């Protein structure tokens, strides 16, 4: 796949239809891959596409599409939803991006490999359904399934939204996805248990803002949490209240626009399952206002700027979800 992608990119660069390429660049080890912009064919020597290219590159296209010339972007299915949502919000100039859809069969998470007690990882080779992990302390083997990131295990769709060209096979929407199971599990708890759960998670927050900055839906030029006059501290985890507020508002502001790409949880240095907050909103929207997938349909109004005359009243919250 990787070789074919590089070849196609070189072709498009050579015939002048694009002037830059957005993709992934290899790192020091096989797992520390960075998203990167390649300016010419020579730089593509570092181009990589493998099991560790989990980073969503759609958000970078906002800035890239403001520059001169067209950029080629390789988008995974989940990236393409983010991309389509950004188009809908008029954040990306569609004319300036040439999109090639690439399949993704689930990306690996180095932290899951480490959690299995495999440390000192130097290189990771894919062999059938296994990863052969070369470490400082010898060779280890782990099933790909066990190393796959949580968001990929509950993948919602392997189908792309808005692409100019497909490489590889197009997938399908996965109606069987169990992505709301954890949310439902939390909903079934008592409020006290839920409070304990979230305190345990959110109290670890160091307010690095990685979840906000990586989020393809968080595209405000200036964030409310960055306003020095707002009396909200953008970098201090000064009180439990602010941890709660930051995460409620972060998730609320992208409610209805969040495509559930899972980047927030991927980037969290403290392993807080932030995607659960976003999924709670998605689940509520689906249940109360009808099925909705952000990014899937360019013409559909998104739920927070829409209403019907007979929407449920906020009082419904007292009746549904959660044990007393």
């Amino acid at each position: 796949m990787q070789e074919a992608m590089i070849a196609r990119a070189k072709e498009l660069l050579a015939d002048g239809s694009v002037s830059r390429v957005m993709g992934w660049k290899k790192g020091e080890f096989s797992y520390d891959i960075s998203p990167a912009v390649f300016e010419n064919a020579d730089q593509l020597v570092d181009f990589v596409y493998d099991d560790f290219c989990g980073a969503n590159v759609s958000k970078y296209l906002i800035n890239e599409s403001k520059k001169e010339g067209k950029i080629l972007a390789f988008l995974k299915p989940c990236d393409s939803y983010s991309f389509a949502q950004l188009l809908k919000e008029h954040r990306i100039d569609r004319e300036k991006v040439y999109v090639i859809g690439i399949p993704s069969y689930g990306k690996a998470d180095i932290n899951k490999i480490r959690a299995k007690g495999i440390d000192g990882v130097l290189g990771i080779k894919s062999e059938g359904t296994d990863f052969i992990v070369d470490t400082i302390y010898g060779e280890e083997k782990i099933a790909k399934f066990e190393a796959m990131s949580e968001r990929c295990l509950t993948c919602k769709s392997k189908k792309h939204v808005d692409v100019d060209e497909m490489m590889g096979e197009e997938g399908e929407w996965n109606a069987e996805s169990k992505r709301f199971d954890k949310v439902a599990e939390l909903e079934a708890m008592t409020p006290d248990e839920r409070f304990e759960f979230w305190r345990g998670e959110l109290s670890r927050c160091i307010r690095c803002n990685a979840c906000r900055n990586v989020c393809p839906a968080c595209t405000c030029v200036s964030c409310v949490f960055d306003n020095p006059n707002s009396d909200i501290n953008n970098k201090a985890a000064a009180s439990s209240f602010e941890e709660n507020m930051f995460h409620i508002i972060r998730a609320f502001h992208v409610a209805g626009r969040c495509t559930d790409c899972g980047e927030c949880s991927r980037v969290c240095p403290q392993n807080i399952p932030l995607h659960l907050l976003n999924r709670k909103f998605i689940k509520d929207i689906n249940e109360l206002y009808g099925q909705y997938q952000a990014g899937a349909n360019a013409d559909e109004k998104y739920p927070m700027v829409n209403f019907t005359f007979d929407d449920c009243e906020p009082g419904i919250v007292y009746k549904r979800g959660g044990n007393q």
Partner: protein
Amino acid sequence: MVKLNVSKLNDFFAAIAAEEKLYIPVDSADGAAFRPYEAGMEMSKACNSTRSAKDFFFPQVENLVNFKVDHNKKSIEIIDNRTEAEDFVIFGVRACDMASFEILDRVYLSDPVDSYYKNRRDHGVIVTAACGRPQETCFCTAFGIDASNPAGDVTTWFVGDDVYFKANTEKGEALVAKVAAIGESAEEKPVEDFKAGVKFMMGRLPIKDIKLDKISARGLMENFNSPIWDDEFKTCLGCGTCTFVCPTCQCFDVREFKTNEGVIRFRCWDSCMYSDFTQMSHGNNRVSQKERFRQRFMHKLVYFPNNNEGIYGCVGCGRCLRSCPQSLNIVKVAKALGGKD
């Protein structure tokens, strides 16, 4: 030198915890983390904690002073929060984090002395632990740090089923005396063998050879104007993860929080990656992410050594390699800046 069987380690912890606060690294949802010792806790076997040990001396948020406003009397009372810190022991600090304290000391203990930092530094006893299982992200050897022989008030080595203790300072002597009561005196030989083993492992690490001398040789302006900055920063998110997990990042911001009765003036870690870092009335003097990105690495690799007899502002703990959301890090930058050959 005194040794103690690992099975007796918790007795030792209990003896310290009975008298003062003791922090040990334990496994938690976010990896190894220093937590106050409670009976039955098991020490983490991880190579290092997710967050650095600097938190104990330079916490993320610290109240400096409170102002209490009385509207009836039209008065403002100034309340100084500084109290003498309690004595505490932090156990299991690695060589890289220990080296980071020397860097922080240079900043905070040089004139004018930061009394908040000094207070904690004076009351903290640091027990270091030699590394036994370095990771691929470790590159402390590049900065001349010996992972097998860390400094600190007390140094410990976990060799087989025994823990070896050696006091380095007066504060450390008192602690080792407690070990001596339940342990036994030991020879240096097993520790020396262990050190040799660790050194061998350190020599095999993949990223230890970053060419720092090449960066130094190039001079400040040449590094500053290097074309690599145009390339490397592009996918930096501008989040503060690298700075917040870094054991040597020492920048802070002083902010005020209006309570219902007055004002709390506090300081919190700041990050040069943020757009409001060193914000002034005219705005920010680093307007693009490229400049902010450059600042962080130039500070660690060029400015700091220029001002501090060649000591780099990085200790090679590898936390930023593990935590950066997009895997951009100091090693990649140093390699690009140092050149390929």
